[in-house]
């Protein structure tokens, strides 16, 4: 299975996302922001970092990169896409996910090991987890506070599209402790913390991040065999 990892100018965790894909057993394919061709990948990761220096708003400019136009179309067609941190911000700016990520309430960049609770395990990126499972992965961001209007939030909750919530403390003030969400189809997931930094005992606080990448590989194997994504609503 080939999972593309996009590099924008200013992407930083792209190498780490590619490493995580490899450790999970996939083939990582590096994609370049200026190249609209997805080179036949089966899924895409938008990595963390500061694309375009986070000028204006995080993700605001990356959204207009040639590769993003292709990815947006493919995502609407069901391509599994995982946006991590800056990637999550890009997905929101591109309107592939609802809401927005704003300045942390405490106004500081914050890097710590963070507990999350998985709340939707039927997305393309979370089937390796069990519902309600608590995991520990690093969070590191300055603008990770998830906001959306009440109706959107209620809709996300109602449709089971809140993928993960912060537990034992909310590191950035996100509304309803939201750490990760998905689109209605369950193929596009945005997550603020960094699963790619919890895939090796030597360098991470746990191996909990690996599940996101193995989920995608499992999901791809399933769809290749004719399986269907059930989406968040089926939870």
């Amino acid at each position: 299975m080939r999972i593309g990892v996009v590099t924008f100018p200013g992407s930083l965790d792209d190498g780490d996302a590619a490493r995580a894909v490899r450790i999970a057993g996939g083939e990582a394919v590096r994609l370049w922001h200026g190249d609209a061709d997805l080179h036949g990948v089966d899924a895409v990761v938008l990595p963390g970092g500061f694309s375009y220096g986070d000028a204006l708003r995080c993700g605001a400019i990356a959204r207009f990169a040639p590769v993003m136009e292709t990815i947006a179309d493919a995502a609407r067609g069901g391509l599994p896409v995982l946006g991590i941190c800056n990637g999550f911000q890009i997905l929101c700016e591109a309107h592939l996910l609802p809401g927005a990520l704003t300045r942390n309430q405490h106004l500081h960049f914050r890097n710590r090991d963070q507990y999350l609770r998985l709340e939707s395990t039927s997305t393309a990126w979370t089937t390796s987890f069990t519902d309600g499972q608590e995991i520990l992965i690093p969070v590191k961001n300055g603008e990770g506070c998830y906001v959306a209007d009440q109706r959107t939030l209620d809709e996300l909750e109602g449709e089971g599209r809140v993928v993960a919530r912060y537990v034992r403390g909310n590191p950035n003030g996100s509304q309803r402790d939201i750490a990760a969400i998905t689109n209605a189809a369950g193929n596009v997931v945005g997550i603020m913390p960094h699963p790619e930094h919890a895939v090796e005992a030597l360098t991470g606080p746990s191996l909990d991040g690996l599940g996101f990448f193995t989920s995608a590989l499992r999901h791809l194997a399933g769809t290749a065999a004719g399986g269907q994504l059930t989406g968040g609503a089926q939870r």
Partner: protein
Amino acid sequence: MARVVVDVMLKPEILDPQGQAVANALPRLGVSDVSSVRIGRRIEIEFAGEPDLDTAREIADKLLANPVIEDFSIRVDEPAGDAARMSA
């Protein structure tokens, strides 16, 4: 000056922690009659030729403001009048 100014502010219902932090610091400066502070962005767009409000509006709409959380207003820059620019 062929300049258009776009002001982008958070929608009123969106929390503004930065503005809040400034407001909270005011009593220490001895200021007590401020009821709220909101912090947004001011973007100055310089055109090569004539200032073009329509283009500016399109830029603002697509790029400068995020409609999920922000409103914007747009105007051709009038030369500084009463407003004293201070080089602090």
